[in-house]
């Protein structure tokens, strides 16, 4: 259905894709993952000639879309595209957004286009928004409308360019549900995404892009759980950890906590555990800044947070190169009311952690806390 042969593309002097080969069967759902700048979106844009490749061929249903003689507008009618930033037509209502192309491009009678649009809107439960304007909708609603707008052209192929990246975390679910339903209906789909759990669930095949091309590909299990090649392994591992570096006495505590919460939200970690991790980070880092470093020396504290699928515990690791002090040794869990106010936070962390290990080696002190 989709065939990419020896595709290369550069921007200025920067080579983004080089000699990419790819074949996608009818009804297949392919997820593309990879670090930013790996050419995921560029590859997607080449599939409907939004980007012109420097060399190579892209064939859709046997039609070479890189050929100048091909009527690209005709081809695009059959290839639906959903963007990260929705790109709904802001001067038109939801209904007008959906019927514009069917009526003006496919020359469908208006009444028929409207009834079809209403049917589609019902499947994404947004029929009552048909007379709203895009700026009156939430991000999740906008993206569902954008999907309906693509579906209204009866596409044979659907391309998704990071469909949930611009959404508030609370709205990701509603959009993924719609895409999941489309995958079940057997649409041929290519999805560029950062939602690994989603990719694992809906994709028939996952492509990991790196080094200007498809670096590793295979079943979701193979790529997302047991990757074989070095960069894939590193990428997947990095996704599962949260890293933060504290290099100033006035570091952005609130920003760090917000990013940690975002990380935890991806794994649906319990609220209590998240609060525990937040507390541990805040108290231990505050302690280290106060007792292990002295101005003018700049602190260098590295935080790594990992979530164990097996034991359902958050593993927090805090490493620093300051003076080696173990505050946890100084408070005892049985001390009861007689806690030094300076150590109250440390005491609380100790109370709610499952395990705390302190070690010191090569000038680096490490706290390993399990919550």
């Amino acid at each position, binding site marked *: 259905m989709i065939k990419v042969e020896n595709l290369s593309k550069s921007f200025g002097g920067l080579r983004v894709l080089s000699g990419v080969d790819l074949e996608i069967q009818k009804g297949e759902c392919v997820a593309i993952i990879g670090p930013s700048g790996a050419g995921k979106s560029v590859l997607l844009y080449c599939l409907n000639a*939004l980007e012109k490749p420097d060399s190579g061929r892209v064939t859709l249903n046997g039609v070479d879309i890189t050929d100048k003689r091909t009527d690209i507008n005709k081809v695009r*009618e059959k290839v*639906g595209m959903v963007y990260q930033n929705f790109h709904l*037509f*802001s001067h038109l209502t939801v209904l007008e957004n959906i019927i514009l192309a069917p009526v*003006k*491009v496919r020359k469908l009678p208006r009444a028929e286009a409207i009834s079809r649009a209403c049917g589609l809107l019902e499947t994404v439960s947004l029929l009552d928004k048909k007379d709203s304007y895009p700026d009156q909708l939430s991000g999740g609603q906008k993206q569902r409308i954008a999907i309906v*707008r693509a579906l209204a052209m009866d596409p044979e192929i659907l391309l998704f360019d990071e469909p949930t990246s611009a959404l508030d975390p609370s709205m990701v679910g509603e959009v993924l549900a719609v895409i999941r339903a489309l995958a079940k209906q057997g649409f041929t789909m290519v999805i560029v995404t950062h939602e690994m759990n989603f990719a694992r669930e809906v994709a028939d095949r996952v492509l990991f892009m790196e080094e200007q091309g498809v670096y590793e590909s295979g079943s979701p299990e193979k790529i997302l759980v047991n990757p074989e090649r070095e960069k894939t392994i590193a990428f997947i591992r990095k996704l599962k950890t949260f890293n933060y570096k504290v290099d100033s006495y006035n570091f952005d505590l609130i920003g760090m906590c917000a990013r940690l919460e975002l990380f935890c939200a991806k794994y649906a970690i319990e609220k209590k555990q998240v609060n525990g991790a937040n507390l541990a980070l805040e108290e231990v880092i505050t302690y280290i800044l106060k007792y292990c470093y002295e101005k003018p020396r700049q602190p260098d504290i590295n935080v790594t947070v990992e979530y164990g699928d097996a034991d359902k515990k958050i593993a927090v690791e805090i490493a620093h190169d300051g003076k080696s002090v173990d505050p946890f040794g100084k408070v005892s869990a049985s001390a009861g009311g007689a806690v030094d106010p300076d150590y109250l936070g440390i005491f609380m962390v100790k109370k709610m952690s499952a395990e705390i290990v302190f070690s010191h080696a090569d000038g680096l002190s490490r706290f390993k806390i399990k919550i």
Partner: protein
Amino acid sequence: MAHSAGIVRLMQIFTQLSESIHANLIAGDSYLYILSGLKVTLLITLAGLFLGTLLGAVLCAMHYSGSKAVRFAARTYIVVMRGTPILLLLMLLFYVVFARTRLDAIHIAIIAFGLNSAAHIAEIMKAALASVDPGQVMAARTLGFTRLGAFYHITLPQAGAYARPVYQNAVINVIQWTSVVGYITIADLTRVINATGARTADPFFVIFLGIVIYLFLAYATHLLFTLAGRKTRTAG
């Protein structure tokens, strides 16, 4: 006593007013003279704007040209025209450029206002086009619209909504600036008002009337644009 003095004063004002109306508007069908001036003002405004809008669109298109020389020409034209007082442009065309032709002064004024407003209108169009989200145009292209189709259905209505209030200001500016065409012998509204006031030696009434007419033109423009804009929404 003070009460009746007030009434007497009021009576005097009414008598003066009716005398003013008679002298400035009715005697010798003077109102027809003022109307003819209004007609000239409207003609120069509308024809000048028509010419200016066409030329402005051309300048705006030149701005998007692939050729550096064409873009430079458009930019230079806009800078020069926006910096040139319209009265000097009028005089240049009337006394120098078209001095030896038989071209009517009104036509010269139309050309001058066309040339001048084109620069402003081109800038308005450029800003309006730049305000349209290119992502929406791309989305239209992926739905199968041709380049022209996407421009017509997406870019144009959105740019139009954005440009409308600014264009309205440009129209009102042209209306008011046409009041200088008297300098090149044209009997426009301002000039006939001036002539009438001089003839009747009662300038206050007729100048005030002139201001009211210009005010009415500005208000009517505003009303027209509001009506035209009621159906379409601005981009948001």
